[in-house]
């Protein structure tokens, strides 16, 4: 990593703004879901905000991402509108997917959010196809595939990285290494000392970076994105982070190492970055507080919008199965 990819003040503020939105949204999600007013499986990303905030600060609006069930942070950072997001999480007609996909399959092509998958590893092979399309289009769009540390052990990871390398695709593989895959700790499942080491097997750059440090994370992402945009092929980034909550809301997380968890929470990247921005004179308290207040207001509005949106009609069961709705066999519903 050279310094030429160090974020400037404007970029740092851009990252902060995204982080504030992500953190606020996670907190609200957990709060609201706890009330039962919205029923959905929820995979908290609290603690991992720096990664997509920094990556997205280095991406263009017309770049693509593919992400996973634990990916609302990735999507919000890429520009998914809050209202439609919340409407989808609440299963409403105004959701991005009319309520049909739900939080695990949020999609929003207008901002390049192309696929959200619930199958471990599957974001990567599809990301390659988007990148192949961009390569053919001759535009210089980049695709980011997000995935977890656990996903680095599944076949799709390997097949995707190899193909991307052989075809020199403009894709960046961003592994959010939060040290757990469901209840299983890193070393129980993963043989590699560092996931970044696996890049050697594909003859592509592999970088392990502190995914909780916006400076380092941004630099790593910006460099990889520049390589991809410049036709130099894929990069594997292993972004070290930590999942503050259990795998899925409701899980007791008894399997997590208590000390490790406490230490991670004590080192929460959000207040750390916030304090640093002030210390470095990038922003003052009032500016940051204003950003946070705006986030809260926007979330208020989005939640209200979502809960006011009607549920979809059951006719939707027959729609979008095929492009032509009339093909769906009538009698399947008899």
């Amino acid at each position, binding site marked *: 990593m050279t310094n030429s990819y160090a974020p400037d003040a404007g970029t740092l503020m851009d990252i902060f703004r995204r982080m504030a939105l992500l953190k606020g949204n996670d907190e609200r999600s957990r709060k609201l879901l706890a009330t039962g007013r919205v*029923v*959905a*499986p929820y995979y908290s990303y609290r603690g991992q905000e720096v990664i997509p905030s920094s990556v997205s600060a280095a991406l263009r609006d017309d770049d693509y991402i593919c992400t996973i069930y634990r990916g609302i942070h990735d999507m919000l950072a890429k520009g998914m509108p809050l209202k439609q997001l919340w409407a989808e999480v609440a*299963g*409403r007609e105004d*959701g991005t*997917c*009319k*309520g*049909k*996909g*739900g*939080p*695990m*399959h949020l999609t929003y092509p207008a901002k390049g959010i192309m696929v959200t*998958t*619930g*199958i*471990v*590893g599957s974001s990567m092979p599809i990301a390659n196809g988007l990148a192949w399309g961009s390569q053919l289009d001759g535009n210089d769009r980049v695709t980011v595939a997000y995935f977890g540390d*656990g*996903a680095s*052990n*599944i*076949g*799709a990871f390997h097949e995707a990285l190899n193909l991307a390398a052989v075809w020199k695709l403009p894709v960046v593989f961003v592994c959010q290494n939060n040290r757990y*895959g*469901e*209840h*299983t*700790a890193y070393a*129980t*499942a*993963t043989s590699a000392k560092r996931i970044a080491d696996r890049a050697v097997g594909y003859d592509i750059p592999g970088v392990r970076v502190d995914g909780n440090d916006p400076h380092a994370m941004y630099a790593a992402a910006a460099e990889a994105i520049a390589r991809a945009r410049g036709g130099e092929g894929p990069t594997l980034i292993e972004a070290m982070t930590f999942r503050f909550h259990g795998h899925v809301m409701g*899980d*007791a997380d*008894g*399997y997590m190492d208590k000390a490790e968890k406490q230490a991670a929470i004590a080192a929460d990247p959000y207040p750390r970055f916030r304090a640093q921005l002030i210390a470095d004179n990038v922003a003052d308290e009032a500016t940051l507080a204003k950003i946070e207040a705006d986030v809260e207001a926007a979330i208020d509005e989005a939640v209200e919008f979502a809960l006011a949106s009607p*549920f*979809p009609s*059951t006719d*939707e*069961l*027959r729609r*979008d*199965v095929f492009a032509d709705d009339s093909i*769906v*066999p009538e*009698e*399947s*519903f*008899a």
Partner: protein
Amino acid sequence: MTDAATQTRPQAEKTAQITIVEALNRAFVDAMEADEKVLLLGEDVADPEDGGVVGISKGLSTRFGNHRVRSTPIAEQAIVGAAIGASLIGYRPVAEIMLMNFSTVAMDMIVNHAAKLRFMSGGQTGVPITIRMMTGSGIASGGQHSDYLEAWFSHVAGLKVVAPSTPEDAYGLLRACIDDPDPCIFIENLLLYGSKGPAPQAGHKVEIGKAAIRREGSDLTIVSYSRLAVEAQAAAARLAEDGISAEVIDLRSIQPWDKEAVLASVAKTGRLLVVHEATKPFGAGAEIAATVNHELFGRLKAPVHRLGGAFCAVPFSRPLETAFAPDAARIVDAAKSLCA
């Protein structure tokens, strides 16, 4: 159907009631006690990982050791492959593929290998493994976490497929699958995990391929399995109020399925309704309907009717998800049309 007797005995006769999760856990304990060749592997299954995401294997690695109960990487091909390999040399591994949709990354191991090695080796090797998979719509987990794929597995020569709906059957079928010399697909429904029923006796086994008659009746036969067998029973109770006497058969095994029991029942009632959560086209119900039509040609009082899940991915939004799968109300409606 000697089994029908045990299955229809009033629950009051039994005092202890346990859940399906408890029944499965007990089946593991008893099977692992009885046979040291029984192994368990899958994501999060050992105690340091909380004994499985719904706790089915809680306590097992502590009791039987981490060598016999192993949490794995997220790598279903590796999981099923390891189970197959160990089974070739005398072990009886039970592999957990968490959700049924994840079997799609391991179909090669299951279909090209587990199902076929006995035949292709001319009987020199066998694959006595059990592959557990959970599934089911109804908990808002959407299009990639809820599918019923029993028809796929049932179409593969060499696999057996079971889907219990009660704690006793969960216990008895798991014990039977573990003891079975061939690869078994064991389907669990997420919504049923907490449902209670009489505790099985230790060592209880349910013969693979034997259905249970849950309720006797004379006007029509309702055939189902897994969660919808429970809905079918609720429907039959409502139908009885309207004067329609429905016989309810819980198949329990889908491959092989109990043709004898189904044909005997339909020969008696003259009407058949088959109900499953998988979508109707090319579903397991088609095989049952085709067979019954063939065997009882000219003896049916009404066309065999099938009910299945909607022809779409399992939707997320609550009202859509509710409308997706057949339920007691839709079963009642279909039964009434059949008997009209």
